């Protein structure tokens, strides 16, 4: 999808979890994206996160490593 839309959606999720204690917020963002984002969306997310100025909320960046990786199948 359009990169700015994906960034926007990820940051929306971060905005909801921001009021929670930091550790819980990071876990919340990672869990939400792992549970609801289809592999194509996560693949694109991981790709975009590699860019230095990705525009992602710091919470999303921090959650990055904990988001379910995408298996290389089909």
């Amino acid at each position, binding site marked *: *999808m359009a990169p700015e839309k994906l960034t926007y959606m990820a940051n929306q999720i971060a905005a*909801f979890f921001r*009021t929670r204690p930091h550790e819980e917020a990071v876990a919340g963002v990672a869990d939400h994206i792992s549970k*609801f*984002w*289809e*592999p194509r969306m996560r693949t694109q997310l991981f790709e975009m996160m590699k860019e230095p100025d990705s525009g992602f909320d710091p919470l999303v960046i921090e959650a990055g490593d904990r988001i379910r990786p995408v298996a290389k199948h089909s």
Partner: protein
Amino acid sequence: MSLSKEIDYGTPASKSEDTVTLTIDGFTVTVPEGTSVMRAAMETGIAIPKLCSTDMVDAFGSCRLCLVEIEGRRGTPASCTTPVVDGMVVSTQTDQLKTLRRGVMELYISDHPLDCLTCAANGDCELQDMAGAVGLRDVRYGYDGDNHVKTRDGGGEVNARYLPKDESNPYFTYDPSKCIVCSRCVRACEEVQGTFALTIEGRGFESRVSPGSFGDDFLGSECVSCGACVQACPTATLQEKSIYDIGQPEHSVVTTCAYCGVGCSFKAEMRGEELVRMVPYKDGKANHGHSCVKGRFAYGYASHRDRILKPMIRESIADPWREVSWEEALGFAASKLRRLQADYGQDSIGVITSSRCTNEETYLVQKLARAVFGNNNTDTCARVCHSPTGYGLGQTFGTSAGTQDFDSVEEVDVALVIGANPTDGHPVFASRLKKRLRQGAKLIVIDPRRIDLVKSPHVAASHHLALRPGTNVAIVTALAHVIVTEKLYDEAFIRERCDWDEFQDYAAFAADPANSPESVEALTGVPAETVREAARLYAKGGNAAIYYGLGVTEHSQGSTTVIGLANLAMMTGNIGRRGVGVNPLRGQNNVQGSCDMGSFPHELPGYRHVNNADVRDIFEKAWGVPISDEPGLRIPNMLDAAVDGTFKGLYCQGEDILQSDPDTKHVSAGLAAMECVIVHDIFLNETANYAHVFLPGSTFLEKDGTFTNAERRINRVRRVMSPKAGYADWEVTQLLANAMGGNWSYTHPSEIMAEIAATTPSFANVTYELLEEKGSVQWPCNDKTPDGTPIMHIDGFVRGKGRFIRTDYVATDEKTGPRFPLLLTTGRILSQYNVGAQTRRTDNVVWHEEDVLEIHPHDAELRGVKDGDWVKLQSRSGETSLRAKITDRMSPGVVYTTFHHPATQANVITTDFSDWATNCPEYKVTAVQVSPSNGPTDWQEDYENFSRQSRRVEAAE
């Protein structure tokens, strides 16, 4: 099968638990205290003659036909208005009573036409029955006296008392010459429907039923055409036009309405395979014998000439359609889908299940994706309506289920209605709510519009919080702020039932001065004091129930608002008993069911995530195939992936995403990018303009199955006629699955339900036999709750402890500015339903033939717009034109329209902003500009041409 005639007990049932024993005609009878003598007699099987009483309304005592004699009492009291007393001895038939009743009937008949043989009510007329019951043989007064029957009097002069038939309503007629002025219609309009459109005008012999004031006809009156008056009328005075056209029905089948999420039960009254009329079913647990204009009358679409009855295919959407056999269409579709998977990968195709089809059909469509396609690319229209309910209530309570049954409204003391317009969207529930409000319950409305509930006859909201669209979370948190800081919460309940630490955290958050009504006033536009008063009423007004709709969910913070509402209910202890709760009003007939059946891409039936290996194991064993543990694409994600070129094929059942989903241009770009779009529907809908395969669908009248309404009630849908295109929808899905190697062999929907019950704990004990026995059942229905579950969370929350979650307000990025200074919000109206595909093909169009833009007089004047003018409505996404309707129902700065008509395509305007948690689109907030216009925009004209091109059909040779 026979024509089911429900017993009319004459007066409503008493709810008293104390009983009274009396003797009627020598029989000993025990009934609840407060029961009328008439009802007590009927309960023992003795039918006292009657005309003005019927058990849908309170006793009135005007016809003087139901007289009885009671030992020790003087005179002949009316049995309908006489309550039973212990030891009473009643006689219903004596010489005196016989003479009196015959005399009364003589008077009635002396002013009634004697055209029984050609009368529409012949065979279904209580006046005729009563004449027979009392043995009327002669009318001593003759028929030439003063009367309402004849157009001319004996001397040939015009009879001023005669009024011609009023045929203005498209569905029923009012024939004053046949009226006996029993008032049943007037009372039904008041007591059952709550509209107060009818009255008795004049006195004595002059009295007659009148819609509105003198000279008004039914169509021009306040009448909402719910049918309650027609139901109540004992004669042919108020009569369905279909009875005039066809005659009396000869058998009936109980089934469930296919319109809104109230899920009313109806008797489909039939003559052969022809539907004569739909009559609300008294034993229906959702509607108790009431109906609205859609369910009662708007079924004509089912036999509309636009129905497509033959499968069609085409290689390209530029080609005309070609009618083909079922085999060819299914073979074409199956090979295309398999080729796409071979070329673009297993995940390149998916399905959209329908919230209008049955549970069984929905279950099969998601099974098609998971078991035959081998992916989880399944989604449903709930994505764009109540998906935030699933998330919000799931997080806080542990289940997405609405907490109450509809009957619970009878014990509500304070109703908080937010983002819902029940009188239009859920009319039968609205009538029940209004009835409770007339009994004294209080009402809080939170809505940008002054919806009808705010002020209607004998109903007024205590508080109307007319907030700016997009500020729900701020208002809900401000309500919590007041409850926390003024210590209005129920500490005992919270300590026992919820996580106390989490409440402390939430309370600290809510108590922050930034969340006070005063702080958010500038944002929401609602005076702080109004918010405070509403919060106090909700917290301390007795049983408080929240009813909400899509005005809550269809926002970028939809899920957050749902969480906020759950927080309010928990902190005030308003959960787990009758009269309280959090009640999502579901839009379509089977939204609840389509969610239950595993339509969402991340969860299997019963709301269990696909990454749960134990759950996958259940289905892998049942289906004999591996199931992917990855969430699939949601509808908006499918469209994005299509534009990206990785999603190529879609099977869409009973859903018109082009018209109903936001940002039409994005939807059409996604559809246009796909190589195989299969539309399975009863009409060539807008989505079908982009389809390569069209599979004709069946209406709810043509198949067996179940719908699950907003109160989790599983109701039977029963086939009353053969599928016009040859197959019920579940059969078509099975044929498609088998064309792709699915090897399914269901022979009846009951077998599908058996598979659902075997795999899904909340449905474990649901069988067609149980539904036959009980009529309906509310899930969870299993060994723990074999009779179903009317009220959730009675002894504890499904998740254990109720969970409070912070609800930080984040303003939507859809903001007004100089170019787009107004906020558009969207909704629906009573006579039309969803994208209008059904209701537009009925006479309901007399009430609403086009979408209009509601605009405040101030905003209209600034723009030089007059009532009825064409205006252009423009947003960042697109523009359309429609007519303006100037009304102070809107707040300044906010405009409103519906999305019932494809000519308007209101969703060209809406944006692709969506709920953070679920991608539920933000339909309810779009920044727009309104300007005068000459007519349809270029886009509308182009689309109209494209549609016409796209719908060309070449008949089979």
